[in-house]
């Protein structure tokens, strides 16, 4: 530690050495702490320190979720504790904002904390966390991987290990007004034609197609849902025809067809939600949570809502996969109890209850039961979108790649770069990031 001298540096001869001692002691203590912090390494606790599942213990569950989602989590925790009276689950509330939640988790993992034991992770994070050595390999628990939707299961698998288990699925599709659009469009061109003719004939409509185009993660999912091909295998060169077509479509929707207002370049999901729920647009790209809100009492679009994957020019539609996974902290000493809790959360009854009460679509295929359909019939329609779901690139450097793609989309939508030029300049950046993965 050369940067901090332990010697008193002041040259004032009158100062007593005692003062120097006090100063040096304080300094030394701080430097020592710095050294200790700097050299902390990821070490997994030995198996012997693991607390057996049968012991009386408390596990910490880090999760986000406000309102109905938060309530559903509390109810699930209560039910789990009742069935397992020796395990107490303490909920650690994370921010509902993905970036802030990431920061909160980062801080705990970087400090080497053994809590939280169970972590809720957005599907884009598990591989990144696994690469950092923060997540426990769940292979030892023999995860029943085939019971989940395969696209989401893949988000938790890395280098032969299972590091996260799907909790609930999400995919982005196109909402359309069943009273205005008789047959849902089969191609992007049809969607444009429908939107334009509706805009011309219905003065109450303000726009034809609402999507989120602000520079944030949502722009990437919108891009992917509209046909962008950024599968993990394409990262060495994302300059492909699907991406060019999608970027061109997004630009044209605003600047050529005028079916999307230029305001979408600053819109996030909540803005799209408002546009849809106010009945001012016949088409809107959004996540499944909006279905429940659309069908709620008093909604102007109740009974007029349909939901499909974004129509594809090639006939094979795709929907950007979202959703949440559950993982266990590599340093947790309560891994057995943590796994028990995850098993409970992914059990069919718990999945159905959450789907009904919080609108979170089950990640377990078998949870789409007759009972679920009878209570919430829209889940039947939603399954078509989940079936088309494709994950965002599964790579530890996803955050960095996403930043580049967001910038690319934003500069195209703003007219700063042509789709072709933007792809050409972004592709090598993405390839370079992906090449750093070992």
């Amino acid at each position, binding site marked *: 530690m050369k940067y901090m001298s332990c010697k008193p540096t002041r040259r004032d001869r009158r100062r007593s050495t005692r003062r120097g001692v006090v100063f040096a002691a304080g*300094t030394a203590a701080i430097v020592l702490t*710095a050294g200790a912090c700097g050299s902390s390494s990821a070490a997994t606790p030995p198996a012997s320190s693991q607390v057996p599942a049968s012991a009386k213990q408390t596990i910490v569950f880090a999760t986000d979720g406000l309102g109905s989602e938060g309530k559903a989590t509390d109810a699930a925790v209560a039910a789990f504790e009742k069935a397992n009276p020796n395990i107490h689950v303490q909920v650690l509330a994370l921010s509902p904002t993905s970036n802030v939640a990431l920061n909160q988790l980062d801080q705990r993992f970087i400090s080497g904390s053994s809590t939280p034991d169970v972590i809720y992770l957005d599907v884009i994070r598990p591989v990144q966390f696994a690469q950092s050595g923060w997540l426990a390999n769940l292979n030892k628990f023999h995860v029943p991987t085939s019971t989940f939707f395969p696209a989401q299961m893949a988000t938790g698998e890395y280098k032969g290990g299972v590091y996260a288990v799907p909790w609930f699925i999400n995919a982005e599709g196109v909402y359309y007004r069943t009273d205005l659009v008789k047959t849902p469009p089969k191609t992007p061109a049809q969607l444009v034609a429908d939107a334009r003719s509706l805009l011309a004939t219905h003065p109450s409509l303000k726009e034809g197609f609402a999507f989120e185009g602000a520079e*944030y993660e949502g722009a990437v999912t919108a891009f992917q849902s509209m046909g962008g091909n950024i599968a993990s295998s394409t990262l060495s060169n994302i300059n492909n025809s699907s991406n060019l077509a999608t970027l061109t479509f997004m630009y044209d929707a605003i600047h050529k067809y005028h079916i999307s207002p230029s*305001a979408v370049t600053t819109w996030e999901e909540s803005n799209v939600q408002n546009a849809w729920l106010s009945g001012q647009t016949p088409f809107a790209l959004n996540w499944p949570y909006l279905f429940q809100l659309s069908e709620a009492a008093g909604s102007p679009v109740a009974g007029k809502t349909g939901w499909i994957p974004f129509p594809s020019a090639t006939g094979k539609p795709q929907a950007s996969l979202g959703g949440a996974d559950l993982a266990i902290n590599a340093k947790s000493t309560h891994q057995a109890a943590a796994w028990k809790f995850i098993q409970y959360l992914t059990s069919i009854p718990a999945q159905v209850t959450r789907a009904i009460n919080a609108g979170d679509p089950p990640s377990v295929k078998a949870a789409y039961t007759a009972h679920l359909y009878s209570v919430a019939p829209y889940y039947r329609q939603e399954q078509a979108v989940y079936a088309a779901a494709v994950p965002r690139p599964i790579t530890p450097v996803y*955050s960095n790649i996403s930043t580049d793609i967001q910038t690319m989309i934003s500069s195209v939508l703003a007219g700063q770069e042509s789709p072709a030029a933007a792809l050409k300049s972004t592709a090598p950046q993405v390839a370079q990031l992906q090449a750093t993965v070992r």
Partner: protein
Amino acid sequence: MRQVQTPPVPHAQGEPGPDRPEPPSRAARGAGQGLRRSDRRFGYWAIAPAVVLLLAITAFPLLYNLWDSFHHVDYLNPSTLGKFAGLGNYKALVTNNLFVPSLERTLGFTAVSVVVELVIGMALALALNQRFRGRGLVRAAVFIPWAVPTVVSGMLWKSMFDPQTGFVNYILTVLHLPLAHATWLDGTYTGWAAILIADAWRNTPFMAILLLAGLQVIPAELYEAARLDGASVWKAFRHVTLPMLKPALMVALIFRTLSSFLIFDVISAMTSGGPGTSTQALAYLNWQAIIQDSNFGFAAAISVALMIMTLIIAAGYLRIFRPDYTR
């Protein structure tokens, strides 16, 4: 002779200034001499907790950050974690194609925003220093924006600039002014203009508060003397107000320049650095390196660069406003 004689630059009440050396007070002289040894020892122990605390919350993070900046601290690359990187992170500042453009934008924004805020803040302070009915109420009203948290004001302005539902385009439409159909946050210059407006709306009152405080300590006799000498309002401002306002002006400028230079929250709330990277400022880049990329080493290099630049700016101001001994 029209030149109004200016007295030496005064300081806030009670604070001895560096230009007016005061004889050391009894207590100051006594330290280390008049006190008994045991008293002195007790004194050191008494301040030790404060010193340790200060070191812990200022020196430690600073040095830790410096350490990070010379090491590989990229949590996505655990194999090199903590290994010495030499100047690698600093080299990346130059080779990375984001840092230099961000620096240029940040400097441009800082210059424009400080000038705008200074001019408006000065006008506000001069107006609020006049006597008029309801002055207390107006003063309080002017300072309200400053009490609004930056992120909140950013969100507020974002919705004001919404092209469909926002107030800005509405008023421009009503008044038949240009840019009534602009998507403000979707253009480089309109985006920066929106950020500037949001930032100035919140921070100009701060500038005004500091300048007003400075104005209030200028004795009225000086203006009377200037008037008797036949100085115009402008001359009085130029030769009485400005020189007397120097200390307050320096504080206000240093504060505002540094916080403009480190602008983050308004950008994060309004544009997220977009469209593309056109409104990315240095602090935003720093945030991205830490939070999104979890590359603490590179982020630390950005922070150190930021720190050095802020020190240079502060030192520059101190030099410009150095008390003039030659008069």
